[in-house]
């Protein structure tokens, strides 16, 4: 790779990173929120070094005219070996950079959630009492924990509101699912609750589901079914933090 291409590649990579981190929240489809400032800093550093490189070495396209200037500078190899030719592996940086700039891939969804993966829910020490009346907004994590862990069975007879995306199952069944990440999208773990009583919306649609626990097994033990008898399903826009499991906004 010519050194002039190297500068262009640095700028493209930096611009791609800045586009998803500084000019929007697209980066949250891929990584945790805490990484965003570091991504911005990296993008700025790459753009700056690429710009300096382009200024020093020229750009590839008018390269013919600038070659005279480049010769003097490159007359003495910097480390005794040659840095004027970069590594060919660097071309591999181009597709992800263009992808981020032009057509950033979506957050992981039903395709990933439909694949087998264990449903990991932390052991709750204790459960806060539910509000006295009305439907209860719960995160998927808390709903699953209450169904399978809570000995007081406070979900018995209560209406809950959950949100997630639609993951089609076999034979027309579907599940309300969420993906949780601990670091980046590569380590996504899925949570899912089977929904009864309403036909499946299209895959990957984000919805809130209002309903009651589907009585199957003993509530408060691991035999309890992770399922809901739905009374209503409402479409919602995709949340900005797709991997953060929150209860739906009340009302």
């Amino acid at each position, binding site marked *: 790779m010519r050194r002039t291409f190297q500068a262009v590649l640095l700028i493209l990579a930096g611009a791609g990173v800045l586009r998803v981190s500084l000019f929007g929240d697209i980066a949250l*489809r891929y990584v945790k929120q805490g990484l965003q400032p570091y991504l911005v800093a*990296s993008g700025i550093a790459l753009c700056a070094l690429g710009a300096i490189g382009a200024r020093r070495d020229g750009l590839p396209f008018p390269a013919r005219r600038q070659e005279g200037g480049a010769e003097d500078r490159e007359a003495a190899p910097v480390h005794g070996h040659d840095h004027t030719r970069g590594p060919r592996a*660097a071309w591999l940086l181009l597709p992800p950079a263009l992808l981020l700039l032009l057509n950033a891939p979506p957050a992981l969804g039903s395709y990933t959630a439909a694949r087998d993966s264990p449903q990991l829910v932390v052991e709750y020490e204790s459960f806060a009492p539910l509000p006295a009346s009305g439907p209860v907004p719960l995160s998927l994590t808390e709903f699953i924990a209450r169904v399978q862990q809570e000995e007081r069975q406070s979900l018995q007879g209560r209406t809950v509101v959950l949100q997630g995306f639609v993951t089609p199952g076999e034979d027309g069944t579907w599940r309300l699912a969420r993906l949780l990440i601990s670091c980046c999208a*590569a380590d996504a773990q899925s949570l899912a609750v089977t929904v009864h009583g309403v036909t499946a919306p299209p895959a990957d649609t984000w919805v809130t589901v209002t309903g009651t626990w589907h009585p199957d097994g003993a509530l408060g033990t691991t035999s309890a079914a992770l399922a809901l008898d739905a009374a209503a399903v409402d479409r919602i826009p995709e949340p900005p933090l797709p991997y953060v499991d929150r209860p739906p906004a009340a009302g």
Partner: protein
Amino acid sequence: MQDVRDTSPQSEKQSEKQPGTGPGTRPDARPGTPSGARRRVRAGSRAGSRSGEGADFRGPATAPVLAAGAASVLAVAGLAWAAGAAQWLTHPGFRAWQTICVAITLQALPFLVLGTMVSGAVNAFVPERVFSRVLPRRPALAVPVASVAGVVLPGCECASVPVAGSLVRRGVTPAAAFAFLLSAPAVNPVVLASTAVAFPGSPEMVAARLVASLAVSAAMGWLWLRFGRAEWLRMPSRHTGHRHGHRRWEEFRLGFQHDFLHAGGFLVLGAMAAATFNVAVPGSVLDAFSGSPWLSVLFLAGLAIVLAVCSEADAFVAASLTGFSPTARLAFMVVGPMVDVKLVALQAGTFGRAFALRFSAATAVVAVAASSLAGWWLL
């Protein structure tokens, strides 16, 4: 600095290599057709040592053609992605592959930028005699000191190979240089910090990685003292670090640019392999390996060698391999920075193939043993 380029007059390799005929036989060699003008000028400035190579030639222009071809293929692919032209391009599995690929790359990128910046700065601003001065004279003592010295020098494995080469050339005992070569990419602060980030809430993973990597590097240094033979080594003959009369900031910039692009390319390659693995391989195959403790350690050690993920990013890949035991993931992180396909190629170019194959094979065995022990002890 991975451009493997042996310019010493006594090297028979150089005479075999036809300049200007595209990629050479050596791994990672660059296509030998830079512009004739540039070469001519450089040869003039160092006429004595490279008269054979300095002839003005304009061989078949394979490199520009290849570069243009690669660029156009990638541009077309990028446009196809943008337009969503073909059905398979929008297949959810392929989109998930892209997402995971981008996610691993983005997650590792800040660490890669930081690591290559610091290693570029060390390369340009820290004199090498500092390294050789702090080492004890007795080789057997110099080995563990060099292992520990790797802790303070951030850089990924691609950076440590040429540094170790220059240490050997400056008269540091090879055993100590190899201990440094193995430990520096595995246990430096950037790598340990990224390990801590990738495994939140399990500091014992960081400790186990540190202990196992130091043990492997020291063991390999001592093994070299006992069994190593000088004739396996083709002594490196290049400079690294600051050279008199060159602007340090420019050296820093070029070093960073080169190291970042090189390591970034391999990072994307590793992310692609890991994403393929993540999306395409059914869970049952992983279960077959992850079920057995011994098989899973060997399997992930082999995966580390094949995936060749940069040491600053490999903790995130290891963290994503959720089906495996902590010991197996530790083996992935201990073996990865020390032995992988890309490193064997780099070492073969710097120290010679006879060395690289023997050294990497021995290192892989020692690293698997050490990570099993450390995993049994700490995890």
